[in-house]
């Protein structure tokens, strides 16, 4: 058989030197060829592997849900209009009193949301509907359901497309004056109203009319507004006239300080011409009187709000400070008579005399969310009764409710909000709003928000 080794040995013997070099060349060529083929095979293998890997990736990508073309506008909310319902109620531990009033001030009287019931009670349930009417207007309704009645708190349209920062609102709306005025009770930071709004407006000032607002094209927030209305709420009256019975003007400025602080400040003015505004009181001898006031009423209101949240992220911790100061001047004629003919008062036989009041007051509050869901707050309300003259002397000489007394109230609350839609609150109030009474009050309150509850203002 063929033995290469033998052949090589024979050849080597036959061609001693130069044949050896030829053979080496042959060997080298063979070796090169082998190396080249190996390299090419290796290259092919790598390419095959890469292709396989790629196919796998593609297959995997294909397996992972293909990307269908998204339907445009798919992220808009489908339901129109937005509906939300606010359930609120409380347990109030109050002393038994024959009547409750704020001394030294002609009070706004009725409370829209139920005020001073003792024990368990529900406050009005707010039903809110809102939507765009068309590209030009949006509409809003806030109806408060109480026993046997529905109060329309707000029902308005607002322009959406005037441009130039202008907007017009028409219908019944909460006035843009002050800070708290536009808030419904469910957005308050305390279970009870502050004394300022209580004596100025009862709950808040709302009227039927029109509002014009203008937002300045500046980086600092600057908003100016004017309102004309029928004045169907205290301190105004609806005078059965064609004109505006109430005029309100307001301006607000606001901005940020760094990422963590923001603020808003405002100045508002309200003018009303009450005519025959009902007045109920009792004289210094406890005899009931009834009457009415006609004249003019001017209210100035200054407000300031400051909010802090670390890095502007209020989820964990935040702090809010708010304060409002007012001055109200009223002058005109107060007419009074006995409420009960059998119980004669200082007004017996009917008395109509000049009345003038120059009064002021403020509230200041701080609310601190110290950990997620939990907040504590303190509020101090202080009214300054000032000068109240009736019939040439101090009105306190005639009417017990207008006694020379500066009402005040301390409130301390803690609330827990499991989510942004529910809130439970505990409040302790030291109430010295009525002369001669110092009462400790306890409240437990719940506020539940169902449906697409709209975003709250600042």
């Amino acid at each position: 058989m063929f033995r290469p080794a033998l052949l090589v040995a024979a050849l080597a013997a036959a061609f001693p030197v130069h044949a050896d070099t030829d053979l080496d060349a042959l060997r080298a060529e063979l070796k090169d060829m082998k190396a080249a083929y190996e390299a090419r095979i290796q290259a092919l293998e790598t390419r095959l592997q890469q292709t396989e890997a790629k196919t796998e990736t593609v297959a995997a990508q294909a397996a992972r849900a293909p990307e269908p073309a998204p339907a445009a506008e798919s992220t808009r909310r489908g339901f129109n209009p937005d509906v939300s319902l606010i359930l609120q109620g409380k347990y109030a531990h109050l002393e038994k009193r024959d009547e409750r009033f704020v001394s030294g001030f002609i009070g706004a009287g009725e409370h829209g949301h139920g005020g001073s019931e003792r024990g368990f009670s529900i406050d009005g349930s707010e039903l809110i509907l809102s939507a765009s009417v068309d590209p030009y207007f949006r509409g809003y309704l806030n109806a408060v359901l109480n026993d046997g009645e529905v109060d329309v708190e707000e029902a308005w349209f607002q322009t959406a497309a005037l441009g130039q920062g202008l907007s017009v609102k028409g219908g019944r709306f909460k006035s843009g004056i002050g800070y708290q005025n536009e808030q419904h009770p469910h957005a308050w930071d305390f279970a009870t109203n502050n004394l300022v709004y209580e004596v100025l407006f009862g709950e808040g000032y709302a009227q039927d009319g029109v509002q014009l607002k203008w937002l300045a094209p500046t980086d600092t927030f600057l908003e100016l507004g004017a309102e004309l209305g029928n004045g169907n709420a205290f301190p105004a009256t609806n005078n059965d006239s064609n004109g505006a019975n109430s005029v309100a003007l307001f301006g607000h400025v606001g901005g940020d300080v760094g990422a963590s602080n923001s603020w808003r400040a405002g100045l508002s003015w309200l003018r009303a011409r009450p005519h025959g505004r009902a007045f109920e009181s009792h004289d210094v001898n406890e005899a009931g009187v009834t009457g009415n006031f006609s004249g003019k009423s001017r209210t100035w209101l200054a407000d300031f709000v400051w909010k802090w949240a670390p890095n502007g992220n209020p989820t964990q911790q935040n702090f809010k400070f708010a304060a409002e100061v007012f001055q109200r001047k009223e002058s005109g004629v107060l007419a009074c008579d006995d409420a009960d003919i059998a119980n004669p008062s200082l007004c017996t036989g009917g008395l109509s005399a000049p009345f003038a009041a120059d009064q002021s007051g403020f509230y200041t509050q701080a609310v601190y969310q110290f950990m997620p869901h939990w907040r504590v707050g303190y509020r101090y309300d202080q009214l300054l009764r000032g000068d109240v003259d009736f019939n040439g002397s101090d009105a306190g000489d005639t009417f017990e409710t207008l006694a020379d007394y500066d009402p005040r109230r301390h409130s301390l609350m803690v609330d827990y909000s499991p989510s942004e839609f529910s809130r439970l609150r505990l409040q302790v109030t030291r109430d010295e709003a009525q002369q001669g009474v110092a009462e400790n009050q306890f409240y437990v309150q719940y506020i539940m928000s169902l449906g697409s509850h709209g975003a709250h203002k600042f």
Partner: protein
Amino acid sequence: MKPVTFLLRLGLVLGLAASGAAHAALKVFACEPEWAALATAIGGDKVSVYTATTAFQDPHRIEARPSLIARARSADLLVCTGAELEIGWLPVILAESANRAIQTGQPGQFFAADYVTLLDKPAVFDRSAGDVHAAGNPHIQTDPRNIARVGAALAARMAQLDPADAAQFAARWADFSARWQAAIARWEAAATPLRGTPVVVQHAAFPYLERWLGLRQVAVLEPKPGVEPSLASLAAIKAKLAATPAKMVIRAAYQPPRASAWIAEQAGLAQVVLPFTVGGDAQSTDLFGLFDSTVARLLAGRKP
């Protein structure tokens, strides 16, 4: 009536002064930093961009601050995520801004989520399930391919609103898009080892990132979206992780560290804080930096 007429006159004068001013750049009001960065990338010096939130704010919950209303007042284009992410504050801003250009249905209102297929659409929409979004999960910016989809639509929208600069927008977008596609390939190659990595997330904020990189989500710390984890729910997750172990726990820069830190220590996980959006960490100065950092932090979290 004197104050009224004065006010009207003042308003008129200031209004005219404002409208007469030169209209130099397209004014963009971006709800989140990622869209601000995208608008800047497309617009360059032809846009002036205001960002409503930072990377350290929860975009679900910020206050409708006066400063935001003032900025929205003069915006030509509103760029937001949509899908109800901003529902807690944007409606107030829109209503109070009195700016016709950015109202619903106007070309000046742009929602990024309209151009992306949303994941996690809830089968049942009920508040008892927590803070769920009917349209689907709105945190779309964690997948760079979504950025590309939104960017293409945004470039077209910006060109529509500012035809004079349309050519520049198109050119800048083409340039960005090419660099972006190359970057995506680079990130995908770098992130290959992450495929199949089991992860825990604090908030369900990362489904798009998980799908893009093939991360496998084994648990969410929040028992329900937007609901803070309790000790009991964390303990349940710890038990679950004993059976199906994970590599890392992921949270966004704006989220509080407590829950993540606890589970990381208890279950022996790496804590990964992702920038989540532009500005979320030192490296995330733009969109490229955002994903450079995201991929790097995930890879670092994978190492034992």
